């Protein structure tokens, strides 16, 4: 990268100063000046001195990090640098003329006049050089920043997905383990089943981190296991109903999403009811959507009303996977009844 940039820099230097050199010849030719060899040699000193000077100028800019400092702070320094390098450039030219004895016989000017004239000329070349140098770096910098921001955004999205996916409530796990321990004496075969159910949930929550989507059937099996475990805890305080259209079983869904919604239905709904409540899971096609509905006893309280982490992230996750048409909403649909609805667009072939 750096080597490539360095090569690029030298190409620009040669091309730029070469252009200056050629245009000087061109103007001389059009204005019908005599193109003597001495004159040509003298003219050639301009790009040579220019490259040496601007290269040194670049070294100064890089060494003191002038590119990174705010422009209003650096402007006076730049002005001084321009004047200094113009003078320096002229000195090289004059020295070259003297050493190679390229003086044209007809014009005899004293040293200070020559220096001043030539400094002004060179200044007119060094200022554009500096402008080009600076604008290149500004464009480059903002481009790099944009790429950086994009990369960061992608990373954030990926991390978000990961955290949502692996979300399984520790409160649930420990409560389930506690119930299972009590069941070991009371109902050993139920206890054995419960351990299988818990392992299924844990396994799929771990796999969920790797997969983008799973079939609805798989997800539903997890939810059945989950609800069976919660049933051990809540006993007759929890009633579960399913209304599943079998054709929806093959539809892709985000892993652990239904599970999270059902978990919330129990955590914020049923478990807060003194006399218990129910959870109903419906899955069907409606229009061009796969419609998933979770109804539960309970109220929506202000804090989870649309803004809670789980709900916003559920919507984001759906839209990341299935596009803008996918939707998620949750609302109270009756006295003590909450409904969460997921809409996933179906590919119609």
């Amino acid at each position: 990268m750096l080597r490539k940039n360095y090569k690029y820099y030298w190409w620009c230097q040669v091309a730029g100063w070469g252009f200056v050199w050629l245009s000087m010849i061109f103007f001389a030719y059009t204005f019908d000046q005599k193109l003597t060899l001495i004159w040509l040699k003298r003219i050639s000193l301009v790009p040579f001195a220019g490259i040496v000077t601007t290269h040194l100028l670049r070294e100064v800019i890089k060494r003191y990090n002038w590119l990174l400092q705010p422009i209003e702070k650096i402007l006076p320094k730049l002005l001084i640098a321009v004047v200094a390098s113009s003078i320096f450039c002229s000195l090289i030219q004059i020295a070259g003329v003297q050493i190679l004895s390229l003086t044209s016989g007809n014009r005899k000017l004293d040293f200070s006049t020559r220096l001043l004239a030539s400094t002004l000329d060179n200044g007119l070349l060094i200022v554009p050089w500096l402008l080009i140098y600076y604008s290149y770096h500004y464009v480059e910098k903002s481009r790099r920043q944009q790429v950086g921001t994009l990369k960061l955004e992608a990373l954030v999205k990926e991390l978000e997905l990961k955290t949502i996916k692996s979300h399984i409530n520790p409160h649930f796990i420990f409560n389930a383990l506690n119930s299972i321990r009590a069941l070991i004496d009371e109902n050993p075969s139920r206890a054995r089943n419960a351990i299988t159910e818990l392992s299924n949930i844990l396994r799929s929550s771990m796999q969920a981190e790797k997969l983008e989507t799973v079939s609805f059937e798989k997800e539903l099996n997890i939810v059945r296991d989950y609800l069976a475990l919660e049933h051990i805890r809540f006993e007759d305080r929890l009633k579960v109903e399913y209304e599943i259209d079998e054709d929806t079983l093959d539809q892709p869904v985000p892993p652990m999403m239904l599970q999270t919604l059902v978990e919330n239905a129990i955590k914020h709904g049923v478990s807060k009811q003194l006399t218990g409540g129910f959870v109903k899971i419906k899955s069907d096609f409606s229009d061009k959507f796969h419609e998933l509905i979770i109804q539960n006893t309970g109220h929506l309280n202000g804090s989870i009303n649309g803004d809670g982490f789980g709900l916003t992230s559920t919507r984001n996750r759906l839209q990341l996977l299935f596009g803008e048409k996918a939707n998620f909403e949750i609302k109270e649909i009756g006295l003590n009844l909450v409904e969460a609805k997921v809409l996933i667009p179906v590919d119609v072939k």
Partner: protein
Amino acid sequence: MRAIIIDDERLARSELKKLLTDYPEIEIVAEAANASEGIEKIENLNPDLVFLDIQMPGKTGFDLLAELDRAPHVIFTTAYDEYALKAFEVNALDYLLKPVEPKRLADAIQKLHYQEEKETHFNPQVNVNRSLLTDADQVFVKDGERCWFVKLGEIRLFESVGNYAKVYFAGNKPLILKSLNALEERLDEKTFFRANRKHIVNLRMVEKVEPYFNGGLLLELKGGEKIEVSRRQTVKFKEMMSL
């Protein structure tokens, strides 16, 4: 030692009971499946110890404690309530994580015995009159997210704020939902003195007594609070102090 288990899950209660069979000195006198039931049973049976779940339908375990006049010894049982347990700032409280480790239960019960012993040693006649609260009795105070178990002896001042009472102890002054009159009835008047319409003062926390205009007094408490004693109560105060 008589205990009550309060947990909304039947299996959790039965598991804890099973674990407690190893401790014959702890007798389970009742069980409750929610906070309201729990309050009723605590008030009727006056247990020495309560095993209390924090998350329950309706009211939480903290709400339950805040409604009691006198907080019993409490061991919290919870599956995973990192945040709820953080609510306790200063007080050492005991809690068991479900599923309960037998070793942790043994520690908790031992700690309890030690505390009981200490209390009976310093306050031999604790159980004489259960309707009156003494210095050693603790109350549970909940203010928003923060909770405390406070011994009455540590409280300097109750201040009436509408329907609430502001409780001053150490560097805190949380609000509790109790009227000053109700508090006065339950507090031992030898220690807690009604200085005026709005304040009940712990007399052991009084640092300075100064005469005030109109024949009243001004009490300065250890926390720096200055409380005016009404003229009528000044007479009573002088009577009590002259003994």
